[in-house]
């Protein structure tokens, strides 16, 4: 499984220390990503999606309780790397990040062209002109007009700033770009535009994407693979085509039913109850208390089992196949 994959994660854990105990933000997460693929991580707020991004990029706050597991990028062991070599070899040049609301974090007093060029000049030692040419090329790719290079962030609309931030993530030609809610603050038309840009980048540059979002409909614009996260754990990993056709895990099904559709389809439903606290979460299946299919066995923790080609589900409803 891990040979020839782009990113391989096994039993990844990231727990935070708080006064009330350890918060299990990312708990035994395992997945594999292939090259030129887009994986969408779906889930409600507080399910650990953004913490997963932090765990992959080792962007850890001070109150880390546990950070463990295996993480390989192109068969290179990331967990055993020292901090300095991780910073130089992995961050930005291997895996880059478009953080949530990054478009609002551009430096307001530096022209956008210079902000995008900065890593090229500092890390890749290009001179000013080379860096500028490269930036021009990149901005063209994401659809920012050339004369915007000399503008300041406040002169750009939200959609344009988001494109600039995506260009920044691409500047060092990484294998993988992690996008944390890249379109959630944008208008519908702008959102469609940004998704078009990401599709084009995926085609032309064969960049891989890890798309973190709560928006199932938008994720289907880019995803080849889908991972559903609930209460710190992955409950379903599937190829996108089968997932959007028919999600399997009861939580995935509920999540899909909660999407308000513009065309056809039923009236959307909500998911009763609330996700459990990630401090001392319940033993057994974490979705059990909200699940309509709950039965005795749900008191035990279900494993993530393969139920079909390219489909894994963490639910006792699907575990019978494995035993036979």
């Amino acid at each position: 499984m891990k040979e020839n994959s782009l990113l391989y994660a096994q039993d990844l854990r990231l727990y935070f220390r708080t006064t009330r105990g350890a918060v299990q933000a990312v708990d035994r997460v395992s997945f594999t990503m292939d090259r030129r693929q887009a994986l969408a991580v779906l889930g409600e707020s507080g399910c650990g999606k953004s913490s997963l991004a932090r765990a992959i990029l080792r962007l850890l706050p001070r109150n880390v309780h546990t950070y463990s597991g295996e993480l390989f990028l192109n068969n290179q062991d990331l967990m055993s790397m020292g901090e300095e070599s991780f910073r130089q070899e992995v961050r930005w040049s291997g895996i880059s990040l478009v953080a949530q609301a990054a478009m609002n974090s551009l430096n307001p007093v530096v022209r956008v062209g210079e902000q995008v060029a900065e890593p090229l000049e500092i890390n890749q030692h290009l001179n000013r002109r080379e860096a500028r040419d490269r930036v021009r090329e990149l901005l063209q790719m994401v659809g920012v007009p050339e004369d915007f290079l000399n503008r300041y962030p406040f002169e750009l609309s939200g959609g344009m700033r988001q494109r600039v931030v995506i260009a920044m993530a691409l500047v060092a030609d990484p294998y993988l770009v992690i996008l944390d809610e890249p379109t959630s603050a944008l208008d519908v038309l702008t959102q469609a535009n940004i998704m078009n840009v990401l599709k084009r980048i995926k085609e032309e540059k064969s960049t891989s994407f890890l798309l973190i979002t709560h928006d199932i409909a938008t994720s289907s614009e880019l995803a080849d693979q889908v991972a559903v996260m609930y209460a710190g754990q992955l409950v379903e990993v599937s190829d996108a085509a089968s997932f959007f056709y028919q999600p399997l895990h009861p939580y995935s099904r509920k999540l899909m039913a909660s999407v308000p559709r513009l065309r056809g389809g039923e009236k959307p439903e909500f998911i009763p109850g609330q996700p459990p606290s990630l401090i001392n979460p319940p033993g057994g299946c974490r979705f059990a208390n909200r699940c309509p299919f709950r039965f005795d066995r749900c008191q035990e923790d279900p494993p993530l089992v393969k139920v079909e080609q390219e489909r894994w589900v963490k639910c006792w409803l699907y575990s019978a196949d494995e035993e036979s």
Partner: protein
Amino acid sequence: MQDEPLLEVRDLHVWFGLRRWGFGHAGVVRAVDGVSFTLRPGEAAAVVGESGSGKSTLAKAILGLNRPAKGQVIFEGKPLDSLKPREMRWYRSQLGYVQQDPYGALPPFMSVRRILGEPLVINKVGSKPEREQRIREALEEVKLTPVEDFLPKFPHMLSGGQQQRVVIARSTIMQPRLLVADEPVSMLDASVRVEILELLQKQQEAHNLLLIYITHDLSTARHFVQRILVMYAAKIVEQASVEQLLDNPLHPYTRALIAAIPEPDPENAATFKDVPPGEPPSLLHPPTGCRFHPRCPAFMKGICDVKEPPDFEPQVGHLVACWLYERGQVES
């Protein structure tokens, strides 16, 4: 038609003066620029538009918080600008307002009991036990039960969804006839959104409220209102019933909007979306003629960029401000 209109907005303009260096005049932002519509009691209507289209400014003008530069908001036949301060107080008691950010809308130092009691105290409603009774009923209506548990709680002890229920309970406790909900669920999780919108719908139906749902999200509007008003660059470009608007969108902007909204479908990844070029115009210097003309695929030179389109009515009850429909009006 059937009922007398409850709310009428007539050629409403709300402009904001821009100042240069704190004084001096730098121009006028025309946030709402010539909006007209009529709504009846018990109707649920959505104002759908992108950010910056003027939908929140319109909401505030209806609430009487913005002074219009021109035009009128008329409630029950009474124009707001003619109301005396005492009548304005009466008008406000007829209104409910649900804000976008529930946490920001709730005073952090007040318990749920006080938050809900405040409007009753201010409007001098009932005796203390009667007020307590009303508060309990309001909490039950928004399903914050057992009521005992929630009465002493402070806003920070509640989840986002629960906070928004308190806001809804507060907005309806005076039994208003008009409820304005400005993006009531955009700060909430997808799984909770539907729950809150269902609650708003129940309140609307139970009390025969006129609900104005301000949103950027056409898909939720579809399921929770009957009439949709599409706003673009400070104007309403199309208004119709949900079925008319979604089955047969007329304005090129509405069509683009509908085409851009994805459904969870793996086919999406294989195709590029057709999006009109450019961005919404500045409201400081809006384009001449139709404001959508620089982006419009059906642009007709010499017409769209010259004259502003009035509302045409190609089907009964379906209004569209677009020159494409100049001919073929229904007889009225």
